[in-house]
């Protein structure tokens, strides 16, 4: 047992013992309070809660990034392999490919010119030689009833020794799976195309069997976070676990902790210190709670110095911990499940890096000022193509695959029986079941992921040489070239899975902010209006390249945000209504951190082949121009920055027994997220939350790919949370 694991178990044991002790303390009847006790010579106190959280889908749709939500499931699409000889400008005839391979000295003509192999799963209408066919994706669609269910336990034991204290928050969550989920199981497809290799590899838990609902596993490390242990159905972590020392006007915290800065809610301008944990309910919890359950913690040290009554200095140094995105095929997954995301947090030694920051905040009556500087690894990181390292040859069950395998063995020097496995291992692709099958999917997915479909393919070709050249690929310049080329390889692969990796880059972020509280006619709307403006400048932020190139796209980034808050009494019988207006402008990237250049992509479909322009995603237009190139035709991007608006209001009832709230996030590029909610506290130890998430990525015409909400357009849902505190 490693020392780290022993420490972990020890910490949990102490907490468990504390919990047991304190539970007895609390069980003193309905009029009892949380009486504290002595523990280790200090004042021990303890609060806790259990909560059941559920979200019921009102659309029945699964995430389009998930296998069972893919828009091509059950859809018959024609494919015709492109011809490498003319740069994939045309589709290939059997005679042509025979000619190509004949030039190599291999006698493949007989194979390709004869009766095709197969058909394999999903394939029909094969042409002579199997170079064109119709493919119907064989994964069934999901009619999802339940988007989310979770059982949560949280406790905050603390021990206080005067100037010293130990502050702890333990969180344990359990998602049993099933119970209304329509789950995808990789194991159900083991008998197709020799099964899925990645699932048995390093960090393959989310690609093996049923979805990994709560785990965070990265390449090279099963549990990469010091204060978290997690698996497919559970997560236990310590969002807070630190020793605190207070001396005079200085406070020092050492241990696992989070740091939140800034006045804006939800829009993270000054709030740069920690990433987000999006595994559980993405970011669509009760809006008024901001990122209460999402903000990550990190081990480190924080100094807070109240220099004067007016001036506060705050500084931190923390281990770098990235933003955690939902795992493949979980409800709120946003990474297409046919792409394997390699998180290099551990293998890249990013876990040994530190983020630093300092902030000054000054209050002068109605005015406040703040300034901030951080040096950090961006928590989102940048994603790029990476070698699959999966040595698995093309299936010999289709003629093109068989031909390529023989070519690789005969010409490229692969060992007998390995076919093109060694070559594919040096490209970002892996052959497996339930992968990409058609060029339409490629274009559609690129747009969904806010990438350029042609650049993405070109970068594979150009940046994985010489292998890609040996495999007769070519960097496309037009839509039709890419279309034909992709279909050729998808036919041969019988399901393509792409491999991408996530690396993290340092950046410096400088921020300033100012606020003012207005004084108007007492009781008027302009009285006591709290206005804050915040802005950041990042000289060199490393973004994911919109073609997933190896080098991140480094840009200057600016963020400017405004928040106006107002409490106003509209009724004598009800407490004040809280209203907030927020505005955010970002120069280069969208709210989730992807480059705006990749926004607004159209799809592409070969009308001549399909007989129609196949539209997979509603409200994403399809180009049928075969000569369309990168740039305006496919990825026009969003110029002059992205704009977002939040409108929210909260109306409590008398004594705050009920809280009615309404929040709307407007992606000015075309999407809205609307959340009406009600909270009921019938008793102090019970809280009931009911809220509805309505999401539409395409409200006022245009292209759904203009909005970051297109990632979760399907997730309209009714959410219910039942909490009990003790």
């Amino acid at each position, binding site marked *: 047992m490693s020392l780290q694991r022993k420490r972990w178990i020890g910490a949990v044991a102490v907490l468990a013992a504390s919990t047991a002790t304190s539970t007895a303390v609390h069980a003193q009847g309905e009029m009892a309070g949380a009486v504290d006790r002595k523990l280790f010579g200090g004042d021990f106190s303890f609060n806790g809660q259990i909560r059941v959280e559920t979200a019921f889908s009102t659309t029945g749709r699964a995430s389009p990034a998930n296998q069972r939500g893919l828009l091509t499931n059950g859809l018959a699409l024609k494919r015709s392999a492109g011809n490498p000889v003319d740069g994939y400008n045309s589709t290939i005839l059997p005679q042509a490919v025979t000619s190509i391979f004949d030039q190599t000295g291999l006698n493949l003509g007989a194979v390709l010119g004869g009766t095709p192999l197969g058909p394999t799963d999903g394939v029909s209408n094969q042409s002579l030689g199997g170079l064109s066919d119709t493919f119907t994706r064989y994964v069934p669609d999901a009619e999802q009833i339940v988007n989310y269910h979770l059982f949560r336990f949280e406790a905050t034991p603390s021990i206080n020794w005067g100037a010293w204290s130990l502050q702890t928050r333990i969180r344990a969550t359990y998602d049993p799976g099933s119970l209304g989920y329509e789950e995808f199981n990789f194991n159900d497809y083991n008998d197709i195309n020799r099964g899925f290799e990645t699932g048995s590899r390093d960090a393959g838990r989310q690609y093996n069997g049923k979805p990994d609902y709560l785990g965070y596993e990265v390449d090279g490390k099963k549990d990469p976070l010091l204060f978290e242990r997690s698996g497919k159905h559970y997560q236990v972590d310590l969002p807070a676990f630190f020793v605190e020392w207070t001396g005079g006007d200085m406070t020092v915290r050492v241990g696992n902790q989070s740091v939140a800065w800034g006045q804006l809610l939800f829009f993270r301008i000054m709030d740069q210190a920690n990433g987000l944990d999006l595994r559980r309910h993405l970011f669509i919890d009760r809006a008024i709670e901001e990122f209460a359950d999402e*903000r990550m913690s990190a081990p480190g040290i924080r100094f*807070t110095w109240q220099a004067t009554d007016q001036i506060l200095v705050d500084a931190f140094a923390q281990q770098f911990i990235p933003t955690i995105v939902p795992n493949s095929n979980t409800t709120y997954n946003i990474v297409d499940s046919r792409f394997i995301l390699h998180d290099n947090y551990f293998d890249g030694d990013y876990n040994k890096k530190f983020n630093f920051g300092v902030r000054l905040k000054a209050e002068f009556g109605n005015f406040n000022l703040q300034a901030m500087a951080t040096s950090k690894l961006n928590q989102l990181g940048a994603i790029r193509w990476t070698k699959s390292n999966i040595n698995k040859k093309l299936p010999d069950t289709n003629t093109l695959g068989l031909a390529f395998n023989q070519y690789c063995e005969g010409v490229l020097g692969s060992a007998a029986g390995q076919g093109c496995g060694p070559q594919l291992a040096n490209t970002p692709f892996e052959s497996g079941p339930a992968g990409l099958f058609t060029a339409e999917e490629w274009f559609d997915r690129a747009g969904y992921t806010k990438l350029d479909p042609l650049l993405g393919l070109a970068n594979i070709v150009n940046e994985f040489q010489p292998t890609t050249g040996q495999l007769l690929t070519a960097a496309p310049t037009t839509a039709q070239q890419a279309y034909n080329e992709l279909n050729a390889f998808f036919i041969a692969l019988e399901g393509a899975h792409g491999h991408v990796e996530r690396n993290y880059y340092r950046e410096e972020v400088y921020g300033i902010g100012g606020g003012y509280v207005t004084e108007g006619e*007492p009781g008027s709307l302009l009285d006591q209006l709290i206005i804050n403006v915040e802005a950041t400048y990042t000289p060199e932020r490393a973004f994911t390249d919109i073609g997933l190139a190896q080098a991140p796209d480094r840009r200057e980034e600016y963020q400017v945000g405004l928040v106006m808050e107002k409490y106003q009494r509209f009724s*004598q019988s009800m407490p004040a209504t809280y209203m907030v207006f927020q505005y955010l402008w970002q120069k280069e990237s969208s709210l989730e951190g992807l480059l705006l250049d990749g926004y607004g992509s159209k799809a592409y479909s070969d009308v001549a082949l399909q007989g129609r322009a196949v539209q997979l995603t509603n409200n994403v237009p399809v180009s049928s121009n075969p000569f369309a190139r990168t740039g305006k035709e496919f990825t026009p991007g969003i110029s002059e920055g992205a704009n977002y608006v939040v409108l929210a209001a909260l109306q409590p009832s008398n004594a705050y027994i009920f*809280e009615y709230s309404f929040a709307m996030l407007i992606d000015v590029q075309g999407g809205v997220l609307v959340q009406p909610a009600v909270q009921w506290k019938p*008793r102090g130890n019970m809280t009931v939350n009911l809220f509805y998430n309505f999401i539409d990525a395409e409200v006022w015409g245009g292209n759904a790919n203009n909005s970051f909400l297109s990632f979760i357009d399907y997730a309209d849902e009714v959410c219910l949370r039942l909490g009990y505190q003790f």
Partner: protein
Amino acid sequence: MRIRKYDFDYSRRQFAEKVALGLGAGILAPTWQTIAATGEVAKAYPDELTSIELQTKGKIKPGDLIDAKNVEHAKHLMDPIMYKQVSEMGRRLRVRAPNKDITQFFPHAYLEATLKNNGKASFDETGNVVETATKGPWIGGNPFPDIKTGQEGIANLTLSWGRHDMSQYAVRSYSLNPDGSPAYTYDLYWTELNTTARTEGDPVFQGKKDMLRYQSVFFTAPQEQAGASFLVPWYYDQRKFPDIYGYLPQFRRVRQFPANQRFEPIVPGLSFFLSDAWGAGDPMLTWGNTKIVGRGPLLVAGAGNFKGKSNANWENHSWHGGPKGKTFMEYTVELAPECVAIESEPTGYPRAPVGKKKVWVDARNGMLVAYITFDRRGQLWKQVDAAFGPQIEGDFINKDRHGKPHWSWTNVHFHDIQSGRMDLFNHCKQIAGGYASQYEAPNGDEKAIVDKFCTQAAIARLGAV
């Protein structure tokens, strides 16, 4: 017992005359001069104002319980909500003989300061209380021990809430639903530290003469509210709204709130507003039309309510009354010969739900003894019913550094009679987290209290993790 020389009407006429003419307290002699000279108050009043038997025509005497059966005889000695509670809701009050020892009406240092500084206060042209000689901030104790105007009465309450230079109250609130069932239990820690109007040591804390006090409150339980905290530094100028900074657990950071946000519940289920604190929770010049509307005897909860011996955590668990028998804490009350009724309106808060408040202060010590509010329609709304006194129970005495009993509030009922909600505030020895009540800074280090509880860094640190 002295010979009864004066009938009831005599006292009533005298009180009416004092109200009309703006005179000070006392029927037979000026109350405060009598106190200053003799250390007791009885000589200032005729017998019928110091005897519950005479006030009730012999129907109620010390040691009795006042309940629905006999409350009619004491109806004129209580605020209208208390009368309703006793007559209709099963509340009971235990009567004790009046306390004659004036030292039990004040914290020791505050009494000394009141005596020493008597006559030195006045209002300046802005309406703020100043030391007349210097025009500087008030120098401690009651600025107006002999209350002649409503502003004087409110000033006594406002300038030093807890009558200590520094107080920290460990509070446990049991809040009841309208059906009388206990529904919300909150632990909160309330800190107030005066920078001016101080009684001991440096008259101005750290040179902050433009401030009146630091005040903060944070919750330590239950889980959802633990770490919710508010910091409210007060200006000395009572025309200015204090800033409000709040740390809300879900946001994990300090945010600013509007300064006029003083008539809202601060957590679910609580009827208490910041505006309710001490009957003078807002800067006094943000209210207006303040005037004395009456004087007369009243039953007040003073000495005898502290539970330092009978309850390990000083809590009053003598619950009774209401639909579930848990709506009220039993108070021990005594007859106060003269209380001053003051009305005031929230003129600086045009949208406040409160239309008017009425407070009664004890003429002997200027302390709040009853407080009710009316809504904008003029309907009775809320009662703040506090008990104050020395921390003595039997042979248990919680002593200050002078060896004198500590003096503070012991319990408060916050009763919203329109909704039926009730908060039972207990001034505890200690609450979750080891936060203990105290009225002197350990080792006299008041700066440490500010650093630990009264700055933005402090409330962020005390907040949820």
